[in-house]
């Protein structure tokens, strides 16, 4: 008698390839996800994890490659096909209807008849069964809008299970959860696994991978760089694989000669609209003539930190001092006042905060300084001065094409960024807040922007640089702070730092490694 064939894997991806324009998001990716396992996929932002899962869930079509579900080739053209094959997805941002009850949200699209009454009875019975089986702890009659984030996420899981999902994909599920909620989530995932379902966990938090998964794939720059059994690896190895050894950006720069403390941040705390702590007693200083880099996986409070320092948001506690001026929650300052103090801000997201894409370059080059007497007359703007100013900036910062009246949207990303950098540096600020200065910018512009930042450092500016690109931090910073979960978890001098150590701190590896590495 032949031996029973082993069960086919739940999911098999073969040579998946996907490009978005010039970006090669997935490059010949192959994976095998065993049935009844919890498989982790780790990687930095932009490593291609989410793209891959979107292909599996039918949001995107792969350019080439095959997907096999339970050993059968599958054509997944939309989420509906995926649901049909038993694949459910819990998105990072929930897709729920706030005024509806849990029951109504779960039923939507699978009502079981034109009238709700009968379907509701059935759905309620099914929810009760799922409740006893998985212990999600969700009241079917609760209104979504009144539920805490963790419970909303469990409703998403419930939706997938209700539709008979046997394969559950979770995209960065713990990003919005409190530690207690995260623990509960992992208990539920273990139950789901124990019932024979398959779980795919996308995350960049190595601790979660170690705690929850059976196997792990590491992705970097669109490819799978490693596949390990979780028990046979450790956080250190994963961090190294995740970050990799990249070509170092070399910059000629003199050693920093820090002067007086220009920016001092003490005990700053902030919660977001959902009550999650995004800044947790943050404190540090930046001195004149130094660049302090803030490293961290994005979404760990860096964005909020920059916005608080720029006056866009008001901290709940603490104090920010710029030279001798103190900014406290009781006496906040708006972005215009911060600018008057000599604080310039190159925002992380140039389209959201940096410029107005429908404005001409002249106007975008003026934003934030439009009330300056040189450009604003008593009633009308001084157009000639504004135009001359823009033309001069374009010349000095090599913004191409040199067309002051071209709409901002028609410049390439790199040139838009150069325009913003030019605008903010033109005033020779004493404190410069810089977020992701080279995101989506070509090599030439990167070098140029980096040189500008170094020049201003040497001229005595205190620069705070937030970047998720470790290379950039390593190339520019004189001192490095690491942020994780809204806290500064470590500080190292540039010459003591290496990427493996920073990677571990960014992933907030256990105190043993992290604390030893810090200070």
């Amino acid at each position, binding site marked *: 008698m032949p031996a029973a064939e082993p069960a086919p894997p739940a999911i098999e991806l073969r040579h998946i390839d996907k490009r978005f324009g010039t970006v090669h998001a997935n490059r010949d990716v192959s994976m095998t996800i065993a049935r009844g396992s919890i498989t982790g996929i780790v990687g930095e932002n932009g490593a291609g994890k989410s793209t891959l899962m979107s292909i599996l869930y039918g949001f995107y079509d792969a350019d080439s490659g095959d997907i096999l579900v339970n050993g059968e080739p599958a054509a997944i053209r939309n989420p509906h096909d995926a649901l049909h094959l038993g694949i459910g997805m819990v998105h990072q941002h929930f*897709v729920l209807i*706030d005024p509806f009850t849990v029951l109504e949200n779960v039923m*939507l699209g699978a*009502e079981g008849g034109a009238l709700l009454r009968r379907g509701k009875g059935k759905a309620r019975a099914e929810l009760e069964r799922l409740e006893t089986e998985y212990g999600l702890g969700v009241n079917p009659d609760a209104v979504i809008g009144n539920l805490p984030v963790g419970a909303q996420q469990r409703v998403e899981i419930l939706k997938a299970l209700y539709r008979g999902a046997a394969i559950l994909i979770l995209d960065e599920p713990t990003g919005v959860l409190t530690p207690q909620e995260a623990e509960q989530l992992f208990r539920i995932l273990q139950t789901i696994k124990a019932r024979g379902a398959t779980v795919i966990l996308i995350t960049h938090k190595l601790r979660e991978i170690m705690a929850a998964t059976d196997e792990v794939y590491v992705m970097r720059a669109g490819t799978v760089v490693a596949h390990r059994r979780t028990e046979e690896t450790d956080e250190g190895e994963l961090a190294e694989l995740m970050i990799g050894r990249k070509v170092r950006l070399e910059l000629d720069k003199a050693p920093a000669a820090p002067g007086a403390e220009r920016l001092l941040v003490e005990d700053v705390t902030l919660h977001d609209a959902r009550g999650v702590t995004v800044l947790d007693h943050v404190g540090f200083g930046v001195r004149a003539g130094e660049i302090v880099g803030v490293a961290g996986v994005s979404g760990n409070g860096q964005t909020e930190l920059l916005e608080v320092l720029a006056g866009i948001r008001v901290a709940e506690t603490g104090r920010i001092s710029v030279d001798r001026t103190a900014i406290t929650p009781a006496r906040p300052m708006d972005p215009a006042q911060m600018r008057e103090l000599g604080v310039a801000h190159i925002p992380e997201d140039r389209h959201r905060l940096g410029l107005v894409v429908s404005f001409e370059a002249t106007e975008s080059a003026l934003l934030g300084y439009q009330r300056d007497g040189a450009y604003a007359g008593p009633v009308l703007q001084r157009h000639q001065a504004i135009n001359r100013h823009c033309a001069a900036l374009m010349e000095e910062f090599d913004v191409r094409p040199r067309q002051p009246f071209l709409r901002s949207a028609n410049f390439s990303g790199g040139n838009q960024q150069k325009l913003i950098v030019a605008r903010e540096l033109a005033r020779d600020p004493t404190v410069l807040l810089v977020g992701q200065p080279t995101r989506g910018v070509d090599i030439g512009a990167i070098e140029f922007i980096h040189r500008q930042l170094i020049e201003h450092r040497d001229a005595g500016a205190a620069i705070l640089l937030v970047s998720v690109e470790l290379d950039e931090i390593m190339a520019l910073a004189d001192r490095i702070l690491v942020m994780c979960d809204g806290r500064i978890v470590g500080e190292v001098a540039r010459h003591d730092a290496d990427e493996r150590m920073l990677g571990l701190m960014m992933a907030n590896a256990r105190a043993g490694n992290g604390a030893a590495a810090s200070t």
Partner: protein
Amino acid sequence: MQDAYLIALLTLSATIRVSTPLILGAMAGLFSERSGIVDVGLEGKMLAAAFAAGAASAVTHSAWLGLAAGIVAATALALIHGFASITQRGNQVVSGVAINILVAGLTIVLGIAWFHQGGETPPLPPEGRFMPIHFPGQDALASVPVIGPIYGHLIGGHNLLVYVAVAAVPLTHWIVNATRFGLRLRAVGENPQAVDTAGVSVAWLRYRAVLLCGLLTGIAGTYMSIAQNAGFTRYMSAGQGFIALAALIFGKWRAWPAMGACLLFGFLDAVAIRLQGVSVPGIGEVPVQLIEALPYALTVILLAGFIGRAVAPRASGIPYIKEH
């Protein structure tokens, strides 16, 4: 005493007649807006239906053909609005305003071209209209005090479309709250992405909502020209579509409260008509315009947050673009 009672009763009866197009319009708007399609074009659709019904009935002398024409006209405009806002993802307010302006001119141009009566349609014979329905036993009961006038003037004595409007309210409430279509309708107005990921077509759902809106505004317009009146006159909707929209907001996009708002606004109108030219001791002539402005004023006060809070469906006015 007897007199005051009768006056009150007649005022209430007038309230019902005046409220009928408002109720139909508000229910029409409810379907559209709960699906996330803002409809400021209720007025235009009602006016177009009034003209189409008046014109068809003038030619055929059939109230039923008039009704059919009214519904067809309003539905066609609803589809234009749907195409602009659902398929083309245009600005829904602009589309609605465009429909109002288009209809205001077009009804007069066509009216003059077809009937040569300065934009009006010819007066209609009784068989071309929906006439008040005579209830059985109405005459026998007429002499019974209290009950007689109620039965004759308040419950009975209206035309068919009034009863359609009254029936539309519980029906709307039921569809929205007790059917699969209603659940999806409410869902798509709040978060179309949730509907899309559940495998339900957002566009088709919204088109159905817009079609229902066309049907109901068609009946509302028909009521104006061939039930309430005996023919179409220029601009005869006279802002009632906007009042219906105000009532819908006042009723917080729910059927029963919206009907309540329609009756309140209708009552104010009926009172205004009754008080026209009446001199009240101590005040002098009653400023009727002030009463007529109340629906708008009340709605503004409501929106300003003084009477509870009116929260529109969250996705209303936002075209749905699939994003991944």
